[in-house]
């Protein structure tokens, strides 16, 4: 909310500059986000008197004006059509002046005529929004030619932008912030009486006699009587839904003349972000900004049946609001109606038909208290957030109704020249329940960690406007003021004590923490360990959004049975991912488009699958994508292939679990290459898959070349880690190993892993390892065959092997190779 420092000082003067006021209220919870000085940047703009006014010799639409700026007479060319007659005063920017928009004024020729300066509009000086014509001083205003504009128009001010939290509706007006400043600076804030109207009349004949009324006169500082009261119909107010509208007040101003507001009012509204419209409307806005209490003005001539009815809408009922939009209501929307039809959406926006217009003579001012929840629901349902709904949904001060009505009626009458009915309606359909709260200073001290005395607590509570019901050293019973709906229980009062004293006045301490015996959950540790291992293995961590498009899932050929958002920002992010593939390969594809030679990425994140329960199943997965080329030392570079994927998985799993995974044929997801992918197992338990992405899928995902992709199921790995436990030390071998090689020619369809496994089995436990050390195709090797050479390491843990033993076993390996794999031993 924008706040005028000047206005605050008028309401509650304190001896502090704007920076200090801003600092104090910020620390107390009214966060000042920015401070803008006003009226300081208009040097060389002065009041000038028009001395002569002639048509421009060459241009029809320009006027040649001779002005007196207090020192010299100067000729200026002016494009506006409202140049006053000689004797009128205008705002004149002398040559050399720099306007707020950065424009530098210099003497120059316009249409062949020398123009020395510029006659300015409000908008050009950023003191108003009117850009239509030049600013003309009111004839009765005092400033003489040569007076600087900032002084002449009294422009100096600071505008604070205060970010208010939703618990402080009391500060949505200047009065509330002034009251807060009073509390913080220890100055008693005293609400002043509103200026009384020049004319007032007794309203017996106007408001229906059976209605509860209030006398406004005591709320004004003066009031004059009017002998001949206007003749007006008798008006009644009926509240059908007292829970939605606990209080409704109405005052009447008769015989106003709708006209533009005086400059001071327009300027204040302009600085506070509102557009000046007409005196009556501007007055309602000024009251809103002053009291934080929205009011609404109806044109009495357009209220049919002399009646105001506050009721819930009928289903499908319609009305056009002030913004010209026809709205349809539900039975949960509260309306203000006349004898026949809705005339306003309660607390949100007025109706078009009864709005204040130029011909308006008699204004009925509404000032009410509406149920905050009701207003919020309607405002959200209609998508209509207004200055009014913003305040009502946070909770205005119900007890302020008479004072606000008196102020509003007085101001409207002052500006519009009307007469005010001294009696106003004040209908309380559901009285406010006063609540009392107990505050134990000892509890405050215990919670804050610093001593709090009953005396200090009392002083602060009183300054905030609480009524003290009971007071003692052990406890204070207080009734919070009507403008503080946020004060509900003891802890709220403790916060007030802390806040007014200042959080900075509370010392710091170090707590005694009881660490748990279980420590970090295992799954979190596993994720962290996997992440570190993946980085160590050369991968870069990606973080993608949890949501993707259905199209992404479809292209990736992963499950489209996804958790769907009801209100996505776009179709691009409408469903929760069922796989990490779209996100990770998306990043890889972008890297390829940037011309990166390699993208080696991983992500550990959750996927979401509908579960049948309220909440979906969230599964944590580690995904890896390798795209591009593995760099050789100098020059050499080969495209990543499946074996890179296998290698990186081995590096990660070996680091985390001390075990190397197996990669075995098995079922892989549809997006994987059917012939170049396999299942990853650890200790014979499936934990994921690795391979190339299916070429068709890779095309759909706009990937270039063969992209390697792998996934590991983190929960499965964690379960396995729990089962396996920590590594256990093994005795070192006592007896030497013997290595023998076996080379063979075999057909392609026999896999190296299969052969190695069979050889190991055939060794009857003597082969400690069988590893492939050479693979050769082409040359002498017949088509469809390859030459494989294995190195077998034999060891007997209990004795030294003899050559004879080894020869025998090695021969049996060769026999297995020949018999089972049709191998030719070379």
């Amino acid at each position: 909310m924008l706040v005028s420092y000047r206005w605050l000082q008028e309401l509650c003067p304190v001896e502090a500059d704007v920076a200090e006021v801003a600092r104090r209220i910020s620390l107390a919870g009214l966060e000042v986000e920015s401070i803008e000085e006003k009226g300081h940047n208009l040097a060389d703009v002065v009041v000038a008197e028009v001395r002569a006014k002639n048509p421009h010799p060459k241009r029809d639409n320009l006027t040649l004006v001779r002005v007196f700026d207090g020192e010299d007479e100067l000729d200026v060319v002016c494009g506006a059509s409202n140049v006053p007659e000689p004797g009128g005063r205008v705002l004149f920017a002398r040559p050399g002046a720099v306007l707020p928009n950065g424009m530098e004024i210099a003497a120059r020729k316009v249409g062949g005529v020398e123009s020395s300066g510029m006659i300015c509009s409000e908008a050009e000086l950023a003191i108003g929004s009117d850009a239509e014509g030049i600013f003309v001083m009111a004839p009765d205003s005092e400033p003489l030619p040569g007076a600087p504009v900032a002084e002449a128009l009294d422009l100096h001010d600071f505008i604070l932008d205060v970010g208010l939290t939703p618990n402080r509706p009391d500060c949505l007006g200047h009065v509330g912030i002034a009251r807060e400043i009073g509390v913080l600076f220890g100055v008693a804030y005293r609400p002043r009486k509103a200026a009384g109207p020049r004319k007032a009349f007794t309203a017996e004949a106007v408001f229906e006699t059976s209605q509860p009324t209030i006398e406004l006169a005591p709320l004004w500082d003066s009031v004059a009587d009017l002998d001949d009261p206007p003749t007006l119909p008798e008006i009644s107010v009926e509240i059908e839904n007292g829970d939605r509208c606990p209080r409704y007040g109405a005052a009447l101003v008769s015989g106003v003349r709708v006209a533009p507001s005086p400059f001071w009012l327009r300027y204040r509204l302009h600085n506070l972000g509102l557009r000046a419209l007409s005196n009556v409307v501007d007055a309602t806005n000024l009251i809103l900004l002053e009291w934080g209490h929205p009011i609404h003005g109806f044109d009495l001539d357009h209220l049919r049946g002399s009646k105001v009815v506050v009721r819930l809408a009928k289903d499908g009922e319609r009305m056009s609001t002030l913004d010209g939009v026809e709205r349809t209501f539900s039975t949960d929307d509260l309306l203000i109606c006349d004898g026949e039809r809705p005339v306003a959406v309660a607390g949100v926006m007025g109706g078009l038909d009864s709005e204040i217009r130029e011909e308006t003579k008699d204004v009925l001012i509404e000032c009410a208290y509406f149920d905050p929840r009701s207003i919020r629901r309607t405002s959200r349902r209609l998508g209509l957030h207004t200055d009014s709904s913003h305040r009502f949904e946070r909770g205005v001060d119900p007890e302020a109704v008479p004072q606000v009505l008196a102020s509003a009626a007085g101001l409207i009458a002052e500006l519009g020249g009307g007469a005010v009915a001294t009696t106003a309606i004040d209908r309380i359909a559901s009285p406010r329940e006063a609540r009392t709260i107990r505050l134990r200073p000892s509890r405050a001290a215990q919670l804050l960690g610093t001593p709090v005395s009953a005396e200090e607590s009392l002083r602060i509570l009183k300054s905030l406007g609480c009524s003290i019901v009971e007071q003692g050293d052990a406890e204070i019973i207080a009734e919070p003021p009507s403008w503080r709906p946020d004060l509900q229980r003891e802890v709220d009062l403790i916060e007030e004590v802390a806040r007014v004293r200042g959080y900075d006045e509370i010392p710091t301490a170090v707590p005694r923490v009881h660490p748990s015996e279980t420590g970090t959950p295992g799954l979190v540790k596993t994720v962290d360990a996997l992440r570190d291992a993946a980085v160590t293995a050369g991968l870069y961590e990606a973080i993608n959004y949890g949501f993707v498009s259905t199209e992404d899932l479809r292209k990736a050929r992963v499950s489209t049975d996804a958790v769907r958002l009801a209100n996505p920002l776009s179709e691009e992010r409408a469903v929760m991912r069922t796989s990490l593939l779209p996100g990770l390969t998306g990043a890889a594809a972008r890297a390829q488009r940037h011309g990166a030679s390699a993208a080696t990425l991983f992500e550990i994140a959750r996927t979401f699958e509908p579960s049948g329960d309220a909440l979906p199943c969230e599964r944590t997965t580690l995904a890896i994508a390798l795209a591009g080329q593995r760099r050789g030392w100098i020059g050499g570079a080969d495209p990543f292939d499946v074996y890179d994927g296998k290698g990186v998985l081995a590096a990660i799993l070996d680091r985390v679990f001390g075990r190397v995974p197996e990669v075995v044929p098995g079922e892989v997801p549809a997006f994987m290459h059917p012939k170049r992918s396999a299942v990853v197992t650890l200790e014979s338990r499936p934990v994921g898959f690795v391979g190339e992405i299916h070429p068709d899928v890779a095309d759909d995902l706009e990937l270039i070349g063969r992209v390697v992709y792998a996934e590991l199921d983190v929960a499965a790995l964690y379960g396995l880690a729990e089962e396996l436990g920590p590594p256990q030390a093994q005795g070192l071998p006592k007896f030497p190993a013997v290595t023998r090689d076996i080379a063979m020619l075999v057909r392609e369809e026999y896999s190296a892993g299969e052969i190695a496994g069979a050889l190991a089995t055939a060794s009857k436990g003597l082969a400690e390892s069988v590893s492939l050390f050479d693979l050769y195709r082409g040359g002498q090797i017949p088509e469809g065959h390859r030459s494989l050479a294995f190195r077998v390491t034999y060891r007997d843990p209990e004795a030294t092997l003899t050559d004879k033993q080894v020869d025998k076993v090695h021969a049996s390996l060769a026999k297995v190779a020949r018999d089972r794999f049709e191998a030719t031993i070379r």
Partner: protein
Amino acid sequence: MAEPDAVQTFEDGLNEIRGAYGDALRGAKDEPELRLINGRYVGPQGELTKLLKLMPKLPADRRRELGQAANALKQEIQATFDAALHAIHRGAREAELTGPALDITLPGRWQMPGRLHPITRIRNEVLEIFLSLGFDIADGPEVELYENCFDKLGFPPDHPATDEHDTFFIQGNRSQDPESVLLRTQTSTIQIREMLKRQPPLAIVSPGAVYRRDDDATHSPMFFQLEGFLVDQDVTFAELKGVLTLFLRRLFDEHISVRFRASYFPFVEPGGEVDMSCVFCRAWEGDRGRTAACRVCKGTGWMEILGCGMIHPVVFENVGYDPEKYTGFAFGMGLDRIAMLKYGIPNIKLLYENDVRFLSQF
């Protein structure tokens, strides 16, 4: 009498080899050549080997004496060979040590590690501090019940406090029904889950992804928060201040100033926001000119960094704790924002684009 001849031949042979061996070796340039020459004398077909094959033909009475002479020669040859080999090695080493240097500018050759995402990196930094203070990590689901995200945390129904939490609902759920399913808007849900599961004392931090319907220059619809809370008997606001001041000083700089401002979050009371000295203009160093010109703190020297407060008694009531018996504090921070501050990341969107050129910087 063939015997004297055989003896003569043998003796001559030995003498000849003795005379020729040293000279032959001197011609060798390197180790292979040296070994080749050596082989001509002591290899399987070498001259000395051949000579030794004549031994059986020697008269028995001379055999022992001549055998010793041959052995002596063998040892002499070995010694000469060792000396020559050593000289060659030495020469090569001298040449290496005094000759031209290796081209050390050729690229190194090893598997380089990758990098953690900056959010993970900052998460780890933050966690390390809280773990050292005795906090534990906890985790919770990203898809949550309305109840856990709002009601139990004390958000009143139809209240503007939820305005900052523009929520993604799961299809079929778009109301304030406690059973409604949504994407969590804050990691504070973990407070509720942990408190429902466990009894005090509790000291927990929980990092994680959260979601809000904001997508503009400064907001990302998914971002990361880290929530922490401590519940025990007699936990105080002073301790909240102590922990967060310590945390921020460890994370940023031991010299920064920290200030607490009153603020509002439904689940804490008293509630506050924490500002620290601006880290861009290093406001704690007191260079007023630099701070005045700082666009990040707009000349104030302060930047907002955390939200915090004492856990609201309504939260304790909602999880079945006695608010008269227990007190606690809670705090929350945006990991994205802290990563951006600490690593000078200009735009939040960079965090989720996964551009390899960006990821490789951390």
